[in-house]
């Protein structure tokens, strides 16, 4: 059992509002507002914020967790490991929603995805163990700073990533040949069947283990690392990389979430509105994305990510 965790929730914006409303209930409405109504309103607020996080995350191409964890920590004062636990549940719900669509379209390469899960699952178990060790040693501020830095670093990466639709000249390695890490899909836009083979399997496995660690440590899907590994190392087509990454996120996140659940850091009451809200936000994000230009996405959402990152770092170094 995890030791009792001292919560920063006492100074959070949401708790202040909650406590204020709690102490003054009756002043505005004439009679006391039932406690469960107040709690319901807070959970509804968390759900709405999660919708926003899912929307921003999907539009920025970074996934819901990247926005959700800082928002839960900053706005609601949720302790970092609890925010990670709730976020992992939200990422799980979102990845299942989109993953089932990719499966039906047969875009995800199951053979490649399942093989690489050999690296992501131990990575996630390690990442989840690491977060427990760090929190038990009161190193949560270091995690906040690290997450803030990761968020800042991912911004230029997402701006400069020039995606290659169909990689050329891919040389399959020994593993790829032996395990037949290859596939084909019908490309709607190109109007033809595309065949591909994977290359550079060993370094991809290493990157996938790293993606698993990052996923469980920060409560994110780790899709950014996975997609880059699949595109840049294995040289898979863009659409296959995205779909296969999403396919792998489910079991990777399940591994990390299991450890945090056992440790007591998955609070179901918090996870429920967060999961539902993020999934709704991600869905609307996928509808909205084709209507926005890259320029609009950058100008609207990069500042949000930058503010969240800086706020996390400030909290990490003790300057809330």
């Amino acid at each position, binding site marked *: 059992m995890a030791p009792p965790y001292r919560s920063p929730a006492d100074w959070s914006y949401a708790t202040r509002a909650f406590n204020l409303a709690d102490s003054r209930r009756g002043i505005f409405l004439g009679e006391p507002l039932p406690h469960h109504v107040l709690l319901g309103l807070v959970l509804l607020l968390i759900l709405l914020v999660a919708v926003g996080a899912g929307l921003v995350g999907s539009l920025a191409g970074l996934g819901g967790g990247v926005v959700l964890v800082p928002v839960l920590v900053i706005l609601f004062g949720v302790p970092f490991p609890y925010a990670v636990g709730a976020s992992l549940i939200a990422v799980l*719900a979102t990845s299942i929603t989109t993953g089932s669509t990719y499966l*039906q379209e047969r875009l995800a390469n199951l053979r490649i995805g399942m093989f690489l899960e050999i690296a992501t699952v131990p990575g996630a178990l390690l990442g989840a163990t690491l977060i427990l060790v760090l929190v038990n040693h009161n190193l949560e501020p270091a995690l906040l700073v690290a997450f803030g830095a990761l968020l800042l670093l991912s911004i230029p990466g997402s701006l400069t990533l020039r995606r290659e639709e169909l990689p050329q000249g891919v040389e399959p390695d020994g593993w790829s040949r032996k395990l037949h890490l290859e596939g084909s899909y019908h490309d709607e836009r190109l109007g033809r069947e595309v065949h591909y083979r994977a290359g550079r399997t060993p370094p991809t496995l290493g990157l996938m283990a790293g993606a698993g660690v990052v996923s469980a440590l920060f409560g994110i899907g780790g899709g950014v690392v996975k997609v880059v590994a699949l595109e840049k190392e294995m040289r898979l087509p863009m659409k296959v990389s995205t779909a296969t990454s999403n396919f792998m996120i489910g079991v990777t996140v399940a591994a990390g979430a299991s450890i945090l659940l056992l440790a007591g850091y*998955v609070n*179901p009451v918090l996870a429920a509105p967060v999961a539902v809200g993020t999934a709704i936000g991600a869905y609307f994000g996928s509808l909205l994305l084709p209507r926005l230009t890259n320029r609009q996405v950058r100008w609207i959402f990069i500042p949000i990510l930058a503010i969240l990152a800086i706020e996390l770092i400030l909290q990490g170094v003790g300057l809330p």
Partner: protein
Amino acid sequence: MIHEAGAPDVSDGIVGELPRVAYTHMALLLRIGLGVSLALLVGSTLAYVIAQPDQSLSSLLNTNLAAPFLSLTGLFGGLATGSPEAFLTLGVLVLIATPVARVALGAYYFQRNGERIIAAVALIVLILLLVGLLLIGPYIR
């Protein structure tokens, strides 16, 4: 049919894709798991909010609500008494179990398709997950 550079020729003998029904069943499994889980989470959150005792948001966010229900006896006992926390925990467990069940279903279809190596790979993933939980679990509970 156009082959990209590095893609196999027909003479290479591309390993057959899984039958369409395998993809359909896996997608269906994911959707059912998600639907059941979200229904449990939403329904039992509403029940919890209505029934929960007077407590601050701070203590709610820091309470390990799932702890009593992380054993079979605890979970079934909680479900039998209609505890909203037990149903909430079940919702989380179903969500976590859904992609794990997808791996098991994938292993089954690869085995049926004669691809024993990838079926074995999927089993290794499940074993890694199980061994990891068995090794790490006792130290954190």
